[in-house]
């Protein structure tokens, strides 16, 4: 008589105990455990069967022809399918995707509801600290001569029907609270149902001495006449002007950033940006991040540092302006030493810059015209491209200009002399005293000529109208294009 296996009943008992646990203690995460550890069932099944067979063998009982019958293997296949399905469901969470599809449905078939936000105000001191949390939407902040913080605006809700929109509106009340010197403004959009797209456009009027901190996920910020501004957001645009102190922006993606008339430091950190314009910054400027559009810097009283994995630019002061995009950098009236390195191919033109510096390009042309009264030690190097240098006739300097493959042109005069180079390169040296100017290109020509006026291709700075306003103990300058 062949013995019958005990594994089936044992497994049934184990399954019963697990299900009982689930019914007695609903918080017992049976399905999570089952999704992750169902293969243990196969292992236990196999191990029990193995022990059984060894036991039969030791007792000299007849052994089955195969350890598992065809029917059992079929059951194994079903268990594997079920377990894998459970595991996949827990890992990829299809119910979340269904919710996302439901959100799309609202986007496609829903209506947009504009709901007003009732105007509210709280009293404030002359220099309150204000925190504004508006996850989505435009935020406008304006400093005014008053001793209160006043908020108004409207909400935009996308929903399928009126009652849904009203419910979303009810769940996201505007919060305006004041504790001593700290004022908090929250639009509470995070409380809206996940499938209702909700944004709030708010206008905040506050005392001019306010120190403002803004937290957002996406949206645009406009700020004028504040004491200081700090922003953290995932994406959006910023325009700020007439801030007496520092401005700090931490933006994931910046469509455009424009800062004008900032009394303190400006720190802008982005992952990716498009347009950047900084005009009239008194403190140090630090810009980190990659910009795909135009960058413009003008009237910087402190040092400028621009950095991303592809390039580094450092200037000590910028009375003039710098304009750059992906293919060009043009600067006028820079106080150096100017430091610029780029691993991207880029043409560089610097006009009227002082104290020399170092320019190193992976590719691209370099045109330089140092300021007549501010010649400094200068090194310019490009791997592939032409270099042109214009120096005042009266300047004293030492020159060493070398091309590996290309020609050197001396349009300066007899003070410089060409040295014949082996192969196809050229070397131009000259001068006896003064700062050393080194020019080097691996492939391209080098021209040194007399200074005959500004570089012709450079864009001229537009004439501006300047208005000065006294505000409190500070004087603000507004410029109009």
């Amino acid at each position, binding site marked *: 008589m062949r013995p019958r296996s005990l594994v089936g009943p044992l497994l049934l008992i184990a399954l019963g105990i697990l299900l009982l646990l689930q019914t007695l203690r609903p918080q017992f995460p049976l399905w999570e455990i089952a999704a992750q550890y169902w293969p243990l069932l196969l292992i236990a099944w196999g191990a029990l069967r193995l022990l059984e067979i060894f036991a039969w063998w030791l007792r000299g009982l007849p052994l089955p022809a195969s350890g*598992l019958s065809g029917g059992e293997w079929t059951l194994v296949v079903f268990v594997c399918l079920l377990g894998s399905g459970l595991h996949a469901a827990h890992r990829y969470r299809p119910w979340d995707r269904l919710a996302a599809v439901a959100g799309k449905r609202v986007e496609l078939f829903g209506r947009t509801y504009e709901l007003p936000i009732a105007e509210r105000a709280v009293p404030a001191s002359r220099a309150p600290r204000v925190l504004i949390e508006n996850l989505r939407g435009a935020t406008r902040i304006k400093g005014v001569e008053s001793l209160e913080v006043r908020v108004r605006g409207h909400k935009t809700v996308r929903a399928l029907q009126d009652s849904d929109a009203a419910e979303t509106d009810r769940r996201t009340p505007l919060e305006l609270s004041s504790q001593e010197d700290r004022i908090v403004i929250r639009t509470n959009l995070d409380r809206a149902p996940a499938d209702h797209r909700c944004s709030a456009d708010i206008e905040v009027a506050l005392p001019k001495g306010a120190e403002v901190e803004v937290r957002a996920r996406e949206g645009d910020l406009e700020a004028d006449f504040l004491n200081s501004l700090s922003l953290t957001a995932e994406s959006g645009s910023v325009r700020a002007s007439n801030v007496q102190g520092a401005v700090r922006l931490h933006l994931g993606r910046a469509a455009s950033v424009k800062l004008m008339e900032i009394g303190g430091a400006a720190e802008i950190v982005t992952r990716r940006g498009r347009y950047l314009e900084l005009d009239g910054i008194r403190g140090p400027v630090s810009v980190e991040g990659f910009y795909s559009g135009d960058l413009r810097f003008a009237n910087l009283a402190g040092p400028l540092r621009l950095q991303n994995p592809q390039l580094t630019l450092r200037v000590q002061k910028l009375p003039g302006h710098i304009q750059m995009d992906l293919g060009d950098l043009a600067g006028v009236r820079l106080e150096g030493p100017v430091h610029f390195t780029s691993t991207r191919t880029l043409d560089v033109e610097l006009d009227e810059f002082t104290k020399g510096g170092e320019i190193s390009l992976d590719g691209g042309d370099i045109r330089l015209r140092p300021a007549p009264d501010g010649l400094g030690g200068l090194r310019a190097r490009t791997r592939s491209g032409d270099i042109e240098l214009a120096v005042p006739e009266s300047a004293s300097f030492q020159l060493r200009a070398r091309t590996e493959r290309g020609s050197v042109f001396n349009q300066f005069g007899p003070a410089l002399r060409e040295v014949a180079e082996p192969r196809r390169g050229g070397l131009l040296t000259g001068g006896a005293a003064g700062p050393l100017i080194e020019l080097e290109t691996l492939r391209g020509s080098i021209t040194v000529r007399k200074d005959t006026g500004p570089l012709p291709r450079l864009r001229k700075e537009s004439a501006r109208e300047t208005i000065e306003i006294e505000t409190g103990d500070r004087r603000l300058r507004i410029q109009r294009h």
Partner: protein
Amino acid sequence: MATAKAALLRAIRGPLMLMTLGALFLWDHLGTQPFSRTFPILLIVYGVLKLLERTAGGDQPHGYGGQP
């Protein structure tokens, strides 16, 4: 003729395969190695067990090869 040892090896083949399968799935779910990468182990285990069985004298071919 299958020896007693060969019969044992044949009997434990199924349970051992099942345990290997369970271990590979568990390995997959714990995020160490995906099943799609480890499944050849099943073939190897099956091959090794079959080999042991044959060296023990079991699994004689029948129905063809001379003997009726």
